């Protein structure tokens, strides 16, 4: 049963993202603030760092593809960016000391990078024309605040689950 708990959490997070998306944009004093849930990619970064890079990239490709087809109808965008982020995460932790705080910061920096890459892409194909300044104040900062709260609350749980699975795999080589 424990085998399936890592992908099962990924599925739950995948479905939770749009549910949180229903509450956004928040209307604060007449100004819209977009909170973009990025739970799944942060979880995948954790898998990539603590468990196995290849496993994380396979999940990233799969969920990226589902995301593309179901939500944004541009196939190839998330299915490219998600594995790329997992790959970057695994390269970064080779050079720095690995602990929960560092992993959290790395995940948040990568999520900010993902947001920025998406902003560049959507500006490029002309689906949005907001300025960089508006992007930072309306989207990036609220998104980062919301996601860091999520990660601070649940980051240790991710690590705990992934470590439990890793221990189990080491004990049973099959």
């Amino acid at each position: 049963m424990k085998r399936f708990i890592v992908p099962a959490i990924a599925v739950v997070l995948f479905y939770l993202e749009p549910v949180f998306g229903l509450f956004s944009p928040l209307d604060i004093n007449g100004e819209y603030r977009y909170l973009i849930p990025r739970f799944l990619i942060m979880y995948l970064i954790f898998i990539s760092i603590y468990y196995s890079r290849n496993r994380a990239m396979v999940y990233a490709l799969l969920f990226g593809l589902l995301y593309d087809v179901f939500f944004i109808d541009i196939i190839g965008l998330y299915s490219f960016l998600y594995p790329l982020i997992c790959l970057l995460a695994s390269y970064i932790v080779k050079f720095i000391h690995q602990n929960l705080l560092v992993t959290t910061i790395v995940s948040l920096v990568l999520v900010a990078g993902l947001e920025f890459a998406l902003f560049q892409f959507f500006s490029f194909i002309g689906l949005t024309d907001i300025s960089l300044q508006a992007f930072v104040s309306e989207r990036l900062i609220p998104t980062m605040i919301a996601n860091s709260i999520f990660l601070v609350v649940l980051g240790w749980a991710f690590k705990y689950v992934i470590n439990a699975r890793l221990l189990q795999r080491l004990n049973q080589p099959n």
Partner: protein
Amino acid sequence: MPQFFSNKRLILLLVGVIFLVALISFSLRDRDNASLPEQIIKDVVGFGQSIFSKPTQYITGVFDNVDSLLNTYEENKRLKGRLEEFAKLQADVNDLASENTRLREVVDKQDDLRKYEPIQATVIARNPDQWEEKIILDKGEVHGVEKNMAIMTAQGLIGKVVLTTPFTSTVELLSTQNPNYRVSAMVTGEKEVFGLIEGYDDERKELILKRIDSNIEIKKGQKIMSSGLGGIFPKGILIGEITEVSTDDFGLTNMAYVKPAADFALLDHVMIAKRVMTTVDGTDGENTAIDEDES
């Protein structure tokens, strides 16, 4: 970094990038229908999504109920004040409706642009990255939803269907930046003036109504409704209210900023308006009538 960019990896990377660009350009094309694998994925994911979003909506519903319970006293007082006004209005509406049917019988005209069958739907997901203004509904082709149908809430028009699968449909909201998104609208008043809703001003949070005949004067505060002349939308769905009138870039026609009547945030239950009268291609959308010819 010789070991990172070994030959095999470099080739793999290049092939990957080419494949990616090909896929993106394929999906950015104006596609009329989702391909079969896409439809299957959408239906399966949509089914899972509705399992997750329905309990959430139940919970938010409970909070809403508690919230409105707390306001009951104030609201009741306010509503009582308007009750008499409503009774009179109701009588007027009944009178006009019966007169309208009578006159229709006289001229022997049954079809009406205003008539539509509402299909109730629940929003199961909102595009979580929110770059495109899209929501996904739990009703699809088997429930009679077709591309380009109008989506409304109790307050007014919010968007139109852009993609359907057997059990889900994707809706693009009016607040989109998509330049190909048009809705045929009219300014109500003593004289109806027609125009097209084209574009959304992100800073003002208002829609832009263009191509209004400059000979006819329009004023701030007039209501905008769907005209039904775009071919697919029924007539008379409220869109919003004019906040500012100016001339367009070339000075030939007028344009107006329209404050939308409906709220695009926190959508949960919406209505799909299926027009009773025959639909044709027009400004509301394209490639619908062609599909009907083929089938």
